[in-house]
């Protein structure tokens, strides 16, 4: 890989020489990558290759695991996110995350979305909060389905609705980046299509990174694709190039279904 392919005009986040260890075991080995501001970036690769691990190091969720250790440099808008001066609580408000399994809180739909704005003090009052909640739900494409049942428990929604609720919850704190770790793997095709549409809608408003096992999904939603294998970044480039004209044999083998 030449350096050219890795550079992006105005990267939102930039990783340089990142290693991640779980105890003595190395899960990510010397990964450098740029995450574009107006782009959707897809991480693909066989199970256990470290996609989730790397994704979690972008918002320091690895900090919650006692055994995990990250070295190298990751910046957000040029700021080192692992610097001692970085407030991890602020960082996670700027870099939101959506998980593989929908995980709404056992609270009402409204309170789920209002959770982030409340703890960060983003709303000036009740009316303001209502507005933030509505806007987030509209953006997540959920408003029409839940506007009459905002008081119902978030856990009572369908799986696909729950996942969009989680996206709305992340959007409500107005992040700059949204990380999604296999957001559709627990959903049926229709709910999956809705989320993919949503990702299209959100592109440009947020920098989006999505981990997926579904090649078609990566091809459909992303503009940049990164292929990971055994903890290393094998190939990174325009999605169209990766899927039609991969430069590495390992990438080709993977996307043609030879292994993984």
């Amino acid at each position, binding site marked *: 890989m030449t350096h050219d392919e890795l550079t992006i005009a105005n990267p939102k986040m930039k990783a340089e020489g990142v290693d991640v260890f779980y105890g003595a075991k190395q899960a990510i080995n010397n990964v450098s990558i740029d995450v574009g501001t107006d782009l959707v970036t897809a991480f693909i690769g066989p199970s256990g290759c470290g996609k989730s691990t790397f994704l979690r190091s972008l918002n320091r*969720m690895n900090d919650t695991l006692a055994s995990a250790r990250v070295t190298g440099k990751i910046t957000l808008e040029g700021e080192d996110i692992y610097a001692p001066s970085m407030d991890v*609580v602020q960082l996670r408000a700027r870099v939101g995350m959506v*998980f593989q399994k929908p995980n709404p809180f056992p609270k009402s739909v409204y309170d789920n979305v209002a*959770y982030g704005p409340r*703890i960060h003090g983003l709303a000036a009052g009740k009316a303001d909060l209502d507005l933030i909640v509505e806007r987030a739900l509209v953006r997540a494409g959920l408003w029409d389905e839940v506007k009459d049942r905002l008081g119902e428990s978030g856990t009572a929604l369908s799986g696909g609705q729950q996942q969009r609720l989680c996206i709305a919850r992340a959007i409500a704190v107005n992040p700059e980046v949204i990380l999604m770790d296999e957001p559709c793997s627990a959903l049926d095709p229709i709910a999956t299509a809705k989320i993919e549409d949503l990702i299209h809608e959100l592109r440009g408003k947020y920098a989006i990174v999505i981990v997926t096992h579904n090649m078609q999904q990566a091809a459909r939603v992303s503009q940049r694709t990164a292929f990971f294998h055994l903890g290393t970044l094998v190939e990174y480039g325009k999605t169209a190039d990766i899927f039609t004209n991969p430069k590495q044999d390992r990438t080709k083998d993977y996307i043609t279904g030879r292994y993984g």
Partner: protein
Amino acid sequence: MTFNAPALLFVIVGLALIGWLAGRARSALLAARAGVKLHSRPQYHGWYVALWLFAPAALFLALWSSVSPALVTSAVLETPAAQGLPEFGFERGAILSDARSTAAGRQAAVRLPAAAPLVEPYRQAAQRYGAIGIGAMLALALAGGLYGYSRVGPGLRARSRVERIVMAMLLLASLVAILTTFGIVMSLLFESIRFFRLVSPAELLFGTHWNPQSGAPQPGTFGGIPLFWGTVLIGAIIAMIVAIPIGMMTAVYLTQYAAPRVRRWVKPCLEVLAGVPTVVYGYFAALTVAPALREFAAMLGVPNASSESALAAGIVMGVMIIPFISSMADDSINAVPQAMRDGSLALGATPNETIREVLIPAALPGVMGGILLAVSRAIGETMIVVMAAGLSANLTANPFASVTTVTAQIVKLLTGDQEFNSAKTLAAFALGLVLFLVTLLLNIAALRIVKKYREAYE
């Protein structure tokens, strides 16, 4: 012949051993013959015979041991010597049991003169029923053993039969605890009904004056409200004010902050605390906490501060309950999926906010169940209140005053020289019944809540 259950049990175990040997020997002989293929190994045939011999006889033994005393007594009551007995249950019972003990040789002579004429009838009846019981039991053992032995053959599925018999025996064993509890409740119920013939339930439940005297029941002295209030004040209010926050904080610390090494030490320590005999807590309450509180109250100028205070008993009971609450809360918090915690942290919440806003609300139903269980334990707790809360039935909200509880009163009513059969003694059973019903309800409610909550995260 007297009916001596342990010795007889020994006898049928011996017989069963013989049956085991016989069954095994017979099937082994069969197996040795050419062309015979046994379904089960010889041991199982041995067990099959032994169980057939043992189980019916043992069941009969258990049954006969429980009904024969009643049969003997009723036989005795029909003799002319029994006509002079007093009508009242307790006294009558005392005379009868005196005669029974003498007849059985457990004491050299009667203690109550009235019992003397009954000794001989007792001896005779006991012998007669003993002989009947022993004969019937041996006959059953023999019949069972012979039946089992006659079935031994190549086609007998002894292995699966033994399995089934063992299962039935295990089922019986599990019924023992249930049936015993049922029996206890029934006896509580009967004594309570006798009490309620003398004093109305409404008076016990709603009366506000508690001062039972011996002799004929006096109206207006069996009001249970001061007791119930004392129980609630100590067990459900003061103890919980102490135990809930500390228990919850302990659980939060242990599940969210403590290093695995700390957790490994602190958790067993808490569990040990739960095993300390309550009398030890009682000492602590009576000798350390109560005097200190009294001085403190005097310093504050609280009137009638007593050395036996609701506060002392309640605080110590709360301390006793802490491990209970913390372990229930610990379980509930652990049952909240990790994904919930991650979801909150990923939104930029601090661990503290995550605990307050997400974990505790999500764990709350389970914690509530734990609290209800803790309350039911606290109101049934006896030793601490007997030692530290006092026995005067005051209806007061002053935590420095002395109050009494249901359990403490039960102890008071039943200890010391009491004439049985008076309303005063029977009141203890009625109070016990009330306590039993309340704790039963609390337990049912708690278990339902906890179960529902478990289902929510499956």
